[in-house]
């Protein structure tokens, strides 16, 4: 079995011939760690995604199309599945599809986990963060806003998904 794809090398080579300006991924020596404070069956879980998942009944602002400028937004956690979709194009379009939202935004699976008692509850809101060219903007503006909303909603645990 082939091992997993080394995207950092692959993407650098792919774009080098075109733009000669390789992206520098963030890198940290230290990684924070917060053990679970209570059993999952008593924990409140939030879903946070960079998959651009949104709802058909939510009006999109012009700035929502500016994914590369960053920004964050929230969706009701109980948004019906048939209203959810992602307009993202930054995935392997040749190999997979975004037809099934639960493959990148596992809302139905999380609701099932509440129903079965595996997790305690879900927050009222889930959150999206747009990828930004500026890691600083993400760190200084968008992520603190996500944290604030997670705290307002009493989240103990966060499930995070890209596209």
């Amino acid at each position, binding site marked *: *079995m082939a091992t*997993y*794809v*080394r*995207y*950092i090398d*692959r993407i650098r*080579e*792919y774009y080098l011939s075109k733009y000669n300006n390789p992206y520098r*991924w*963030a*890198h940290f020596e230290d*990684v*924070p*760690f*917060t053990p*679970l404070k209570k059993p*999952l069956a008593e924990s409140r879980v*939030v879903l*946070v995604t*960079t998959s651009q998942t949104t709802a058909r009944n939510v009006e999109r602002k012009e700035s929502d*199309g*500016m994914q*590369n*400028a*960053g920004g964050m937004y929230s969706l009701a956690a109980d948004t019906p599945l048939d209203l959810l979709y992602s307009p993202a194009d*930054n*995935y*392997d*379009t*040749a*190999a*997979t*599809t*975004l*037809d099934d939202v639960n*493959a*990148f935004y*596992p809302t*139905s*699976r*999380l609701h*099932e*986990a509440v129903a079965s008692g595996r997790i305690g509850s879900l927050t009222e809101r889930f959150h999206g*963060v747009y990828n930004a060219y500026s890691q600083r*903007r*993400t*760190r200084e503006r968008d*992520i603190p806003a*996500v*944290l604030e909303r*997670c705290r307002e909603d009493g989240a*103990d*645990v*966060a*499930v*995070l*998904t*890209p*596209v």
Partner: protein
Amino acid sequence: MSLVARHLEANGISTVVFGAARDIVEHVGVPRFVHSDFPLGSPCGEPHNAAQQREVLEIGFKLLERAFVPRTTVQTPFRWSKGEVWKDLVFTPEQPYQSPEAEREWLERKEHYRKLRAEGNV
């Protein structure tokens, strides 16, 4: 995504990241990571395979319960059902990552962003 995980975790919220780009997530450094060796776009299981998606999520729950140090990665046992040819093709000249139209739009958005930034609007 990894930056979000790090900030929430540093502020008392336990996190688990589901993803496919293992080298990128591990390069940034996150507390807990569930790696599925799948194409970008399906980090929580294959589309229309709810049973597998449930298993992937459960692996994340167990990781939350059992990890005792940061940078803990687990790999799900699943293989992409249509084979592994995608691994040889993604981000190669043989299979352009984006259509010419999509790439042009991307460059236009980038230019628009530069303009907004120059005007102090982002």
